[in-house]
Each structure stands twice: as structure tokens, then as C-alpha cells.
């Protein structure tokens, strides 16, 4: 009985300490395979739109950003396992994810598109995708969309661990296409030499059922103070021009979206 009381006291003390915690250091989970949002410089430093946004938010909160790398399919479990405190890695705000974690408001919103070889057999989607192999990122909104909409039309949906592996297998000829964020696929693939002759097909994809309401920052449900602070900071950088500056560094149009 005494022991339980003691443990109870310790737990209480810890929880009080935790709730009063100042966010001096925010560990940010990223999957650095998503150019130009999250990727690494040749010398291995994390960089990109997400990373700059995270740094700007940290500066706003007078905290230090520490980046922690994590493969995409383990992003949310890693957050709940306290390997990092926030995910700033182009994570779309979806109903399913909201069951596991909390999101701030969006910090950008770009639609997804289907990408195939131009001038080939695929002209109308999803009808022409029958029997074609479409690579997607495992655990992504695009995977949900491809499984929900394209598989029914006869496409073979192949989930990959990372988006850059999808590009490798497009290059090698194992895949007939991919579904990805339009900006990411443009910067990370279509603009490169490997992406020559490839392009968008079909309409802009942004059904909230699959794609949610844009990319937000995920935090643990228990860290309401961090969520509130980040929401406020997003408002501030959006208002004071920092967001615009970061946007212009990477894109020649606004990615804030509708």
C-alpha cells in the first residue's frame, strides 16, 4: 500500500514537472526523402521547406530544433513513443491520423497528382491504369487514395518505404507511374533528368476523404501546450512575412493553398 502511495506521489510529481515543462528544445521528426519539402544536403544536413518552417517556428518559440530522422511508416508510432515531440514532415491532416495524434492547423496545402510516362498507353485515368504498376509511399495519403480509387480500376498498387525508391523503380522500369504530392513529384522527379518524358495525368487530387486538409504539424495528444504554441507561431510567421520568405526560397507560387 505504501509503495503504491509512493509511486503515486512520484508519478504525480513527474506529471506536474512535465506539464510545467518549458519547450527549450523541440525534437522534430522528419523523413528526409521528400524533396523539396524535407531532404538532405549532400553533406547530410536536413533541409527543405519543412525544415525551414520548423526552424522558423522554433525561433518564434525561442526553442532549439533538433531533427530526428524516421522512416515514414513509423512516423506516428515514433511520436507517441516520444522519440521526438513534433512531426514537421509534410504530414497531411487526416481523420485517421487524428485518432492517434493531434495536429496544428495547416502550414501548407498542395494537391496530389498521378504521374505516368507521357505519350504512352496511359491517357485516361483511372481507366487506362488497368494492369499497370503504380508505386506509392507506404502509409501515405496517396497510398490510401491509390488503394481506394485506382485498385478498383485494375491498377496494381505497390507500396514503397520511401518516395525516392519509387523514383528508382520508375527509372529502372519496374513501375508505370506514381501518385504523389504535385510539388514534391515535380521538384523531386519531373524536373530531374530521370523525369524527362514523364508528366501529370488526370485531374488535381485533393479529396478531403483521402488527402485531408493540408499538411500540419503532428504532436502528441498530451502536449496541448505545444500544439497551442505552434499554432500561435504559425499564425505569427504567416503574418510577419517569414512564411512567405521561406515559400519564395523554394517555390515560385504560394503553397499555402485553399
Amino acid at each position, binding site marked *: 500500500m505504501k509503495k503504491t502511495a509512493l509511486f503515486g506521489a512520484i508519478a504525480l510529481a513527474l506529471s506536474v514537472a512535465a506539464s510545467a515543462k518549458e519547450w527549450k528544445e523541440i525534437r522534430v521528426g522528419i523523413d528526409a526523402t521528400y524533396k523539396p519539402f524535407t531532404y538532405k544536403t549532400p553533406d547530410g544536413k536536413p533541409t527543405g521547406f519543412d525544415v525551414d518552417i520548423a526552424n522558423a517556428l522554433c525561433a518564434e518559440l525561442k526553442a532549439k530544433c533538433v531533427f530526428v530522422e524516421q522512416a515514414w511508416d513509423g512516423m*506516428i508510432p515514433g511520436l507517441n513513443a516520444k522519440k521526438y515531440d513534433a512531426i514537421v514532415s509534410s504530414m497531411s491532416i487526416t481523420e485517421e491520423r487524428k485518432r492517434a495524434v493531434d495536429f496544428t492547423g495547416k502550414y501548407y496545402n498542395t494537391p496530389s497528382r498521378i504521374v505516368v510516362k507521357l505519350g504512352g498507353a496511359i491517357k485516361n485515368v483511372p481507366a487506362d491504369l488497368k494492369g499497370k*504498376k503504380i508505386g506509392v509511399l507506404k502509409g501515405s495519403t496517396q497510398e490510401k487514395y491509390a488503394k481506394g480509387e485506382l485498385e478498383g480500376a485494375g491498377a496494381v498498387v505497390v507500396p514503397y518505404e520511401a518516395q525516392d525508391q519509387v523514383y*528508382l523503380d520508375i527509372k529502372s522500369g*519496374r513501375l508505370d507511374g506514381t501518385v504523389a504530392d504535385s510539388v514534391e513529384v515535380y521538384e523531386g522527379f519531373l524536373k530531374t533528368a530521370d523525369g524527362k518524358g514523364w508528366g501529370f495525368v488526370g485531374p488535381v487530387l485533393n479529396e478531403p476523404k483521402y488527402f485531408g486538409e493540408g499538411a500540419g504539424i503532428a504532436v502528441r495528444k498530451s502536449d496541448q501546450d505545444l500544439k497551442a504554441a505552434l499554432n500561435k507561431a504559425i499564425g505569427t510567421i504567416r503574418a510577419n512575412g517569414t512564411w512567405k520568405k521561406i515559400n519564395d526560397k523554394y517555390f515560385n507560387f504560394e503553397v499555402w493553398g485553399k
Partner: protein
Amino acid sequence: MQFDVIFEPATLKLFWQGILVSLKLLVISVSIGALLSIPLAVLRVSRNKWLSTPVWLYTYVMRGTPMLIQVYLIYYGVAQLDIVQANWDTVALFKPFKDALFCCVLAFTLNTCAYTTEMLAGAIRDTNHGEVEAAKAMGMSKWQVMRRIVLPSALRRTLPSYSNEVIMMLHGTSLASTVPALMDITGAARSVYSDYYLPFEAFITAGAIYLVLTFTLVGLFKLAERRWLAYLQPRKA
């Protein structure tokens, strides 16, 4: 813990298909590997350096590198060679490399074959001298001694360590989950993990499935040993 997710029909189906893929990978690679290992082991123990050195080099390289590296090299590495990319719809030799299952089976087969070859070569070297002498005294040729006396006995004596190799290979098939398009048991668990964010439930289920498969294999090898190694068992009262 939310194990109810695991017992949903869709998840069960995913795991069932995973079991089939894992077993398919295991059975194909282990059987081809075992068949190839017999001639390779005979070459490996040959006194002719021109025969034994290439086999030694092969087993040395395959046993000296992790199987994950071998899978990556064959699946991603080979596919990035320009000559393969340009020709793999036309040249029959390159065609299979487009297929994920083939790449995995190739890596697994090369790997298990190397280990089995060394085990078998060891057992051949360990053959009792008396048996070989007796066979020679009966007037058997070198090949007859190998075929009738040494190999059958070496194959039997390799059984206990070979059962370990097969079990290691079963666990090794989990590397197939690193290759896209292959959903083995581990792949199924990863998929559940990324869909429902339930690492414990997904991987405990996968672990339990591997455990059951492993014990089934252990039981089968026990039976095989009782059948083929009876003459080496201590006599029962």
C-alpha cells in the same frame, strides 16, 4: 492493446497471404540451394585447386556479407545498371530481374546455398576414415565411394545443423519485406503498423506466426533425424 484490429477479416487475410509468400520464398530458395550445394560441396573438398578455390571464394563472399546487402544489391543494384535497364524487356537473362519475387529468391538461394555447401563440405571431411578404407578395400572407385558411402552419410550428419540453417532462412525471409511489392509476414505486420499505428499488436502477431512456423520446422526435422540418424542415437534400454 487493440488486438481486435488484428482479428478483422482484412488483416487476417493480409497475414495469411504473408504466410504464403514467406513459405513460398523459403521452400523455393531452400530446395534449390540444397540441390546446388551437393555438387558444390563435392567440388569444395576436391584436392584440385582449380575446382575448390572458386567454390571457396563464393561461400566466402556470401557468408561474409549480410543477406540484406545481397537483397539490395540484386533488387536495386542490378536494376540501376544501364545495360540491364536498356535490355530487360528483350534479353531473357535480364527479364526476371524486373520481378521482386525472383530477386528475393535469387538472393536467398545464393545465400543459403553457400552456408549449406560449407556445412556439407565439413561433414564430408569428417567422414570416418575406416568407412572410406573399407569401401576402397571392396574395390569401389573414387566416385563410387563418394556416391555410395561418403555423401549419404555426410547428408545425414548435416541434418541437425541444416535444420538450423532452414530456420535461419525462415527468419531471413523477413528481409523480403524490404523489397516493395512483396508482402511477407513481416511486410503484412509493417502494413498493419503503418495503417493503424499499432506497432506492438502488429509485430507480436508476426512474431507469434514465426514462432509457430519455427516449431513446426523443428518438429519436422526431429522426425527426419529419428528416421535418418537413428544409427547415431544412443541406444535405449
